[in-house]
């Protein structure tokens, strides 16, 4: 029974989702939208509680066991609590204040201020690391170790040259050739992969709807 109910739900909702693509009738479409939007939102709201519970439990365990770098877990839990309290009781921003005072003179620390001044710069810092990682990855990829890597190096070299004025100075057709590499062989390969991906999605969906694939249930019969 523990498995049969989820499998039945998947079978019904899976077939219903597929049917809704072909049937424009409002009776089907509105039910489909209800499941996709409203039901999913309710489930997400409930699962968020589980998510927050997981973070707290994970870090409390670390503190309890004195795991490696355990004092940082205090920072996570304190940050979580402060942000949650300000977010729930402190209002969204200066124009929408909450019941807690989230302003000292001209300095405000509303949830929007915290997000814009802490989360966004920290995320930007992580994102900017990508530039350095790209350089190291490019160095590794462009070492001509075998035929494929040599072809990769060659096409990357042509593309880079085609994108700068020096390329045109070397040969006036070089930018057009670089464009052709992007538009024809590159696009053809991407489409080939996409065909496989779409068929894979189709096969996986079918296996799940028919109850053949049960990995998401932890496997078993």
């Amino acid at each position, binding site marked *: 029974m523990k498995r049969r109910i989820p499998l039945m739900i998947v079978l019904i909702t899976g077939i219903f989702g597929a049917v809704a693509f072909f049937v424009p009738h409002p009776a089907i479409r509105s039910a489909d939208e209800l499941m996709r939007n409203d039901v999913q939102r309710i489930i997400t709201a409930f699962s*968020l509680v589980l998510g927050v519970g997981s973070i707290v439990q994970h870090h409390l365990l670390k503190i309890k066991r004195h795991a*490696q770098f355990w004092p940082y877990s205090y920072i996570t839990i304190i940050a979580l609590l402060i942000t949650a309290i300000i977010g729930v009781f402190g209002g969204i921003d200066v124009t929408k204040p909450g019941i807690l005072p989230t302003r000292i003179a001209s300095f405000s620390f509303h949830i929007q201020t915290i997000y814009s001044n802490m989360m966004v710069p920290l995320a930007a810092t992580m994102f900017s690391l990508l530039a350095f990682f790209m350089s190291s990855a490019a160095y590794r990829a462009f070492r001509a170790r075998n035929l494929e890597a040599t072809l990769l190096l060659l096409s990357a070299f042509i593309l880079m040259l085609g994108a700068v004025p020096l390329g045109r100075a070397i040969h006036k057709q070089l930018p057009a050739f670089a464009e052709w590499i992007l538009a024809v062989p590159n696009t053809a390969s991407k489409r080939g992969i996409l*065909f*496989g*991906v779409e*068929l*894979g999605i189709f096969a996986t969906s079918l296996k799940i709807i028919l109850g053949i694939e049960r*990995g*998401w249930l932890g*496997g078993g019969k």
Partner: protein
Amino acid sequence: MILLLIILFTVTPPTAVQVKDLPNDDGGKILITWQRAPEPEIIGYRVLRQEQNSEEWETLAFVGRLANRYIDDEAKNYLPYRYQIIACTDTTAVPSEPSGFVSAVPHWFDTSTLPAFIGTIILSLIFIYFINRAQRDKNLFIRRIAGLDAVEEALGRATEMGRATLYVPGLSSMADVATIASLNILGEVAKKTAKFGTPLIVPTSDPIVYTVAREVVKESYTAAGRPDAFHQDIVFFVTDQQFAFAAAVDGIMTREKPATNFLIGMFWAESLILAETGAATGAIQIAGTDAIAQLPFFITACDYTLIGEELYAASAYISREPLLLGAIKGQDYSKALITFLIIIFTVMALVFNLPVKNWF
């Protein structure tokens, strides 16, 4: 003189006013078409509507002089309406003959999706055939996938080194099929880590994925006969913020130094940040995604990469479950069929100049 002026400034009314229920819609829409009046002084057309059993005409819209169609999207289903188009100049307004009555009806099948419907039926039949065949023929040949052959070796390495295995199921939600495929693989990986006694770390970025992943790992540990080895801390939720998640996983990689990293699922810009950090820690890395833009990063920074469809074949390949292997066979034959059709239609379009694209 007055008669001459009247004749000169007379505008012909719009003709051939036709109305029909808009096809393939969810109802409430009626399409009105008409033939424009030839006079250049016309500035636009007024569209009027009248309900059956009502004397009143209501104005729906005023459209420009070049318009010859209008969709009434405020019609009530099953209620008959008729329409009239008035050609307007600065000084005059000349009405057309009223159209016949028509009602808007919601449709039960969108005929524009017919090719997709036929394709779905054909592909489903191919898959079902091979799944059935797999039940009879247990020795179905499946092509080798290097990245999946390496799973056992990678987990064995982690066991020998006494280090953990890190499994990141991507950053997408359960609505993404790549995430579902990733969790299917996680189930198989968890069975092996449970069997080998290797610590497993599964950070997640979506609360629903966290819940499902936890159940998958728990069931896998039970299936492997090691329910005692499962603890709540194996799978945990980190954050749904993209780069905060990347920072947290990078932190796990550098602190815990897992011997094996699985980066399987849907990834965006954080893919290279994760893969390069993993490579720097010396871990064996197996990545898999259907995000085409991220594939080059994974191929560069990881030891093995499951490209596109291989991601969806992975759980069947690892588990060797005959029914699932049949689906991979179906996937391969469907791909062969599509490739064959593309070649045939391309040749037809090139050689016979047939308007093949209009068929789809």
